[in-house]
């Protein structure tokens, strides 16, 4: 066979792949560059400046929305991860039992339904409860976020559990460790990377959500994404670029961390 014939080569594929990577990153890079634009319109370049970051930092609406996003994300991700860990322990390393298939279907259900449908469903349901109980706090958003974060937290935890065999736990039990002690000293430390990955995934998913939050939130409960959506609809200022850039950096940091946590020891 001729030396320049590579069996893995397909004509044009590398060019298309290169285009894809360029196209994926180009808009994001432009967005970041324009965050440092001194001009007040996004159509011209007025020199390098940090003023839009400063103006976003001083915008109380932005700070409020950011805080709310973090608050909801932290609580929802923590709850979702705890529940997902319990559910993963209940659905792995076991012979099939009645209800197991139902559990898989139920846990993955939020992934199957388009967000808009979940959004209006929660709008209807929660508005009924609001009338009934008079409560209109952040609880609804936290409940909604917890629900759609559970499958995302569940995935890496289950994957990790399935790769763990029961030998060490059985050995611990043979040495008279109580079930709780076995869990705390053996299962949990081994499972920890999966839990951490699930927690980060859930947090990012909660932080990203626009649609469900948009339908569930009451007045004055904007999260960062719903605030941004409102601003973009009203007309764009470089301040949105600055907020996006900060948000982007955070996501990239979490994903990078996630990438290394989930790669380790696999």
């Amino acid at each position, binding site marked *: 066979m001729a030396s320049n014939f590579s*069996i893995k080569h*397909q*004509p044009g594929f*590398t060019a*298309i*792949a290169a*285009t*894809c*990577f360029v*196209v*994926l990153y180009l*808009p*994001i890079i*432009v*967005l970041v560059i*324009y965050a440092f634009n001194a001009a007040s319109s*996004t159509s011209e370049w007025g020199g390098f400046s940090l003023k839009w970051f400063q103006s976003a930092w001083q915008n109380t609406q932005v700070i409020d929305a950011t805080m709310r996003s973090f608050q909801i994300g932290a609580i929802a991700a923590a709850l979702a991860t705890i*529940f*997902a860990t319990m*559910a993963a*322990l*209940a*659905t792995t390393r076991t012979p099939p*039992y*009645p*209800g197991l298939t139902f*559990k898989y279907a*139920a*846990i993955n*259900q*939020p992934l*199957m*339904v*388009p967000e*808009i*449908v979940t*959004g*209006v*469903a*929660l709008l*209807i349901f929660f508005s*009924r409860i609001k009338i009934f109980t008079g409560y209109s706090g952040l609880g609804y958003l936290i*409940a909604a976020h*917890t*629900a759609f974060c*559970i499958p995302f937290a569940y995935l890496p935890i289950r994957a990790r559990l399935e790769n763990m065999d029961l030998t060490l736990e059985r050995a611990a039990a043979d040495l008279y460790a109580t079930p709780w002690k076995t869990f705390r000293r053996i299962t949990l430390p081994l499972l920890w990377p999966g839990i951490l990955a699930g927690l980060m995934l859930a947090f990012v998913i909660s932080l*990203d959500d*626009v*649609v469900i939050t*948009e*339908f569930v939130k009451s007045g004055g409960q904007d999260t960062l994404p719903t605030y*941004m*959506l409102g601003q*973009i609809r009203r007309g764009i200022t470089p301040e949105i670029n600055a907020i*996006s850039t900060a*948000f*982007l950096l955070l*996501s990239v940091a979490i*994903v990078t961390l996630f990438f290394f946590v989930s*790669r380790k020891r696999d």
Partner: protein
Amino acid sequence: MATAEEVAKAAERRDVRARWLLSAPALLVILLAATGPLLIVLVYSFLTPGAYGDVKWQFSPEAWVSVFMERDIFDDTLSLAAAHVTIFLRSIKLAVVTTLATLALGFPTAYFMATRSEKTRDLWLFLITIPFWTNLLIRTFAVLQIIRNEGIVNTILLKLGIVSAPVQILYTDTAILIGMAYVYLPLMVLPIYASMEKLDFRLVEAGYDLYATRFKVLRKIIFPLVKPGVIAGSILVFIPALGAYVTPSVLGGGKNMMLSNLIELQFGQGRNWPLGSALSITVMIIVMVALLAYVRNAGKSGVRHG
């Protein structure tokens, strides 16, 4: 005295009960804040609209009639609701074209990634994952800045003298399509890459040894082997594309509605919650049909995925 068999049975029952207790919180949250409300939507689709939103508790099939039909205000005759049909067709068309576009771009990309050396593969995977986890609204906003009249695309076209006035891309179906293809591309690449990574290139080599052309190898060997990944990717793109809300509302403007915008309209200004509910259920039905087709197809090819 209990026999050994009875003891084992009792232990098994205890185990199953413990497993139900462990999964109860997750199941309860999902039931309350995801699955349960869908049933309420179904109920609402058979009720009468209230005067200021919400519903009157009175059975009416009217919402389901209005999904595709229009009642004449004067003589009560029914005719096809042109506006709704247009929106349904547009949404399905845009979702299908988005799926095809991401497939055309994503397949070669996944192939490229899977044929790199083991070390660099991780880097490419990482590069595809970053946009995937970047906020969808931010990515849509990034596209908006590129394709608007003063954006890079038009600036370049004007500078090169290809056009004399900026091309209006924003607020058209094309803008929605570009935006959706952009934001959903990683969803297509990732599952195809997962299949492609497991591809046994000895089969490809055997194909060449038997004098198959590159195209024939691609069509007869590579494609059938990674088909489960292609189907998974198509489903992952089609479902969110059909129900897309953020991208059409940012890039499509007010005129180019998709299903999600129509549904939102019924819950907002339209104040027709039953119609909004019926439309939501219709979207769900389309999604379920797509999922069923996927499950049947995945079952047939006999490859376990996910």
